């Protein structure tokens, strides 16, 4: 669903209906962008925070980039700042069919079991936020380093450095996990 033309301008003018239209048009995409960026138990809260921030700062959107690009930037920055302990356990989940996000990756041969999925998600959250953001955006969402640099307000070299260390960190964590060691040639 796409928002109607002029909805951003109306939102900038403070039209509550326009805010609802923006949410209706973009909430699923933003939720996908937040996947693996934040723990699944915090996805609802962070999604709300993203759109609150969008509504509060939409006057700063000048139209130099596509609105979706600006929205994505807001989402990532809100996700990076998210610091909370989840107190709710009422998140209802829907398993999506994995999208092919990185053309360079091999086709999925094995979908992780629920236990392994949970362990990998926990390992991702153990990686420092800025490194995790680059790892998720590049390796899971298939975004190139230049776009990541623009989104995060940094340079390509920093992105590549963070990606390098994020990958090494994830590998070290996973190799130390008995449930995941077989992926690295260890004894399960």
């Amino acid at each position: 669903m796409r928002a109607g033309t002029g909805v951003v301008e109306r939102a900038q003018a403070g039209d509550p209906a326009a805010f609802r239209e923006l949410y209706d048009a973009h909430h699923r995409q933003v939720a996908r962008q937040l996947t693996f960026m934040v723990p699944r138990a915090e996805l609802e809260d962070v999604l709300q925070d993203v759109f609150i921030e969008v509504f509060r700062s939409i006057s700063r959107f000048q139209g130099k980039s596509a609105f979706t690009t600006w929205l994505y930037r807001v989402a990532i920055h809100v996700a990076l700042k998210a610091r909370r302990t989840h107190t709710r356990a009422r998140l209802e989940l829907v398993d999506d069919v994995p999208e092919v996000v990185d053309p360079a990756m091999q086709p999925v041969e094995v979908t992780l079991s629920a236990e392994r999925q949970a362990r990998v998600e926990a390992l991702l959250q153990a990686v420092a936020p800025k490194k995790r953001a680059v790892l998720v955006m590049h390796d899971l969402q298939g975004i190139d380093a230049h776009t990541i640099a623009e989104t995060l307000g940094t340079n390509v070299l920093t992105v590549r450095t963070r990606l390098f260390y994020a990958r090494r960190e994830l590998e070290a964590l996973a190799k130390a996990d008995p449930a995941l060691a077989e992926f690295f040639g260890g004894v399960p």
Partner: protein
Amino acid sequence: MSHLTPEALEAAAIDPSGADAHLAACAACRQSVRDARGRRALLAGLTPYTLSDVGFRRVGAKLAEAADEGLAPPLRWPWVAAGLALAAAAVLVLAVQVDVADSAAQPPVTVAEAAPFQPLTVVQSSGDAQRKSATGWGPLQAGDVVREATAISAT
């Protein structure tokens, strides 16, 4: 020996044929390629998660309410902290005022009156003890009565 670049390692994790010669000679890079392959398999096996329709509607309802109310600042940690700081400041001001009031209400300190001097009767006197009288210094003897302002001297 130089090692494969990060980009070359990733490429080798997908298809090692382009780095066969180096990998045959470099155990460290072979391990790095194995690790990269394992990491890629783990990430590729992940199933993305998202909210249910109920969850999305819940967020939408909260946002609609906020938008209708003119997007009052959310009660998040910065605002809670500001409120707590304000409350703490108010408590501090109140505590100082109470302390000042308490100080003003304290009763004045009174000085105890000196006990009146009681005459002393000398029980025993050393050989060099003396007392001063109107006529000058003289020996202080047992039985003498020492009254107020009487000077005595003894070692």
